[in-house]
């Protein structure tokens, strides 16, 4: 399983990362999740979120999640990009892409990875007015 984790303070270049072909002849499904900063949160207006992280632990925890992912589903590749620092409303803060032979495992793995990330990976956000 190919794996890639990027933590970056630069904008996520969604277009550059999106491929127009399967990376492998055995891949039939590419599931991509983009999390964007919402401009409204519990009623209030938000201009941006400030993301901070305990980076060494983020990398270690994602490494463990990737191991568990590979053990559970026949995934061909997993890529995660998480932005840090200031992310303006409507911009992507998270980009996840899973490729797999079939859509069932690709959807299941993608949702599981994001759920586990939100439970275990030490990243925090603070609203900026």
């Amino acid at each position, binding site marked *: 399983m190919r794996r890639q984790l990027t933590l970056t303070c630069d904008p996520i270049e969604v277009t550059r990362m999106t491929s127009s072909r399967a990376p492998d002849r055995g891949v039939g499904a590419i599931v991509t999740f983009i999390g964007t900063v919402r401009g409204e949160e519990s009623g209030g207006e938000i201009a941006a979120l400030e*993301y901070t992280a305990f980076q060494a632990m*983020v990398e270690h925890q994602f490494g463990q999640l990737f191991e568990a992912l590979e053990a559970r589903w026949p995934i061909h590749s997993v890529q995660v990009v998480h932005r840090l620092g200031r992310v303006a409303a409507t911009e992507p803060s998270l980009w996840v892409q899973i490729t797999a032979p079939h859509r069932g495992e690709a959807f299941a793995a993608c949702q599981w990875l994001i759920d586990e990330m*939100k*439970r*275990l990976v*030490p990243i*925090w*956000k603070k609203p900026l007015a």
Partner: protein
Amino acid sequence: MRITVAFYSYFAELAGCAETILEAPPGCSLGDLHEMVVCRFPRLAPLRRSTLLAVGVEYQLGDYQLREDDQVSLFPPVQGG
């Protein structure tokens, strides 16, 4: 024994520092250290139950036995994504 304690997210603001060094007695568990930390930084006390504890880059529970030079981290629930 000497333990480094780091605070992340708003725990650093509440503690007034990002890191401190504590001298812990031999046999001190991570839970014991957590109590020492909230005594020293009382604004963290009300958040005791939701505090996450890590040693190095692994989560640990209160019964974890600390060792010399352990790097302990305290932080609030994570919010990635």
